[in-house]
């Protein structure tokens, strides 16, 4: 017969008492759900183009809804049970506590399944994760927002912030480039941004038919139309990786200080918590230290852009 005196007692992490005996463990996971997702109902799906859709989500549990708060620039992990989870930047206003909007491109395994969902279905979100744009620090300055293609999605949160606190900022320019006129996202909001929020909007497309009246070419051409006071300007750049190099070096030549240029990087992610190491850039986690970096940090990161 085994001598049970030598049996090691089992410590059960599912038991409240033991979990809370671990310092900082229970409290943080309460606020920042790491493994359990918030269950969300898809309340609306808006088709923006044939490749991009805007998903509107509402956290099902009222208590969880009151906990979930984020800052412009942060992202969340959107989980479709059975398919997987993907990092998606939040593109709604952070003062909208009722609904979360996510602009998603049909690009992979999970997102293609997401495109087959219907309003009323349930998905899960974890987060919010990552760093945010320093909106308070930007107050009192000119702001240059530069978006390429889907890069407008993470920029929408700071845009909402600026709209809601317009008096804190001086001139605000939005430079937005896309491949074709039909791929300009949120074009239904352009007039609202221009007229109500006094944002100077400049759009450009790479290729266009004769019906397009605006500019054509690369996004850097738009800088000719914008006169900025470089020393008092903050810039936010979002877009495909190839765009960062051209735009940021152009901004650098214009004289915007490197620590006032912000970029939002994208990488493959599996956890969002700095554990899986898939999103590593050089020796920095995109999920914890990013996705928002100032250009100085990005310059110092190997293989970042």
């Amino acid at each position, binding site marked *: 017969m085994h001598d049970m005196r030598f049996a090691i007692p089992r410590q059960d992490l599912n038991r409240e008492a033991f979990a809370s005996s671990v310092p900082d463990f229970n409290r943080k996971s309460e606020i920042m759900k790491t493994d359990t997702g918030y269950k969300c109902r898809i309340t609306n799906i808006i088709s923006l183009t044939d490749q991009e859709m805007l998903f509107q989500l509402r956290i099902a549990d009222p208590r969880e809804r009151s906990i979930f708060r984020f800052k412009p620039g942060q992202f969340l992990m959107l989980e479709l049970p059975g398919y997987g989870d993907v990092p998606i930047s939040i593109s709604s206003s952070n003062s909208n506590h009722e609904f979360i909007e996510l602009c998603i491109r049909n690009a992979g395994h999970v997102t293609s399944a997401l495109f087959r969902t219907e309003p009323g279905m349930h998905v899960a979100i974890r987060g919010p994760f990552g760093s945010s744009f320093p909106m308070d620090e930007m107050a009192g300055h000119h702001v240059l927002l530069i978006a390429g293609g889907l890069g407008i999605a993470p920029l929408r949160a700071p845009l909402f912030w600026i709209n809601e606190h317009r008096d804190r900022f001086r001139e605000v320019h939005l430079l937005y480039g896309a491949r074709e006129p039909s791929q300009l996202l949120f074009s239904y909001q352009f007039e609202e941004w221009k007229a109500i929020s006094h944002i100077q909007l400049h759009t450009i497309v790479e290729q266009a038919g004769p019906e397009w009246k605006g500019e054509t070419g690369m996004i850097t051409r738009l800088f000719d139309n914008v006169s900025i006071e470089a020393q008092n300007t903050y810039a936010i750049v979002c877009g495909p990786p190839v765009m960062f190099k051209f735009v940021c070096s152009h901004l650098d030549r214009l004289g915007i200080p490197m620590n006032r240029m912000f970029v939002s990087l994208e990488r493959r992610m599996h956890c969002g*918590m700095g*554990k899986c190491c898939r999103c590593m850039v050089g020796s*920095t986690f995109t999920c914890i230290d990013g996705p928002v970096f100032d250009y100085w940090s990005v310059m110092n990161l190997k293989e970042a852009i």
Partner: protein
Amino acid sequence: MIYRVISKPEFRSFIDALVQANSSFGPRRVDTAANGDPVYQFMPVGSADDIEFDYTTTASSAKHFFLPFSEELSRFCFHERDWEQKISYEAQPVVLIGLRACDISALNILDDVLLKGNYPSPYYLAKRKNTFVIGMDHLPLPGCFCKSLAHHTVSTGFNLFCSDIGEKYYLSINSSKAFNYLKDFQTEEPSYEDNCLLTERRKLISRSFQTEVDVTSLPSILDIEFDSPVWEKWGTKCLNCGTCAMVCPSCYCYSVEERFDIDLKGASRNRKLYSCNLVDFAVVAGGHNFRPKNGDRLKYRYYHQHRGFAENGNQQICVGCNRCGRACLAGINPRDVINDLRMEKDSCMICVSQSPGRT
């Protein structure tokens, strides 16, 4: 820490008592390598006789008891148009016998990485809390370089550590649990002779290292040599198989996959250990690969191993066990790669031939 000495037969009966009451794992000989060396692995053991106490080192590390190759993180149950998520941090008590000092150091590093910061991993914690670790010292193999990284001795992270001092084991007792179990066995306070024997043993171990790798200021060297031809040289040899990460005691990168049950009534979310050398490690949706070349991925692994990430205070996570060097099918050994980076004359061919300015 409390120190005791125990005779070897008495120690075996202590192990027997532990093994019979708990699910236990210890080093056992499982195979013979091509060069005739025995291959050991941590396997389930039924009594002290199953355990090879004087084994060299195991081919795989002990991390798989804490980070299994595949682990279910959560489970979804579907009903109607809705689902429910279930999470359980289950772990059964396990006794691990015969871990080497470098293995325990690797666990300490994993503790730093996975249990600190804003998001401690409950899955790892549950397993770590339920594991009873018995360490044993050993004479290094020819390729071991843990002394260079100061991981040939260990002072935390185990319940009990045994040093072989001839007729007896010198025990370092690091937990009340271990102390209580030992109460039923005959142990003695270490005498002056025992202490001398322990010091001699430690000196012998320290003297026996045949491989030394200079790791001073390696983080800075890695930064400076980011575009070095060394990565190209070793990258062309690398087969992208990921063996090094699987045997490494401190590699923890993973991927998360979800899969429907075959009856479509549920789905499971699984964590699988991954390797940064696998081709699709940094592929994003849309197909762009941020590290397309072999050399890029190999470099990234050395960055992680020897430069460390912000999360673990930029400490090196390599413990110098040389498992990756022994297991690599292409013969890539960290010692050679680091020596190349440091432009050691005897090993570095590239810097002599391509850049005459470098010596």
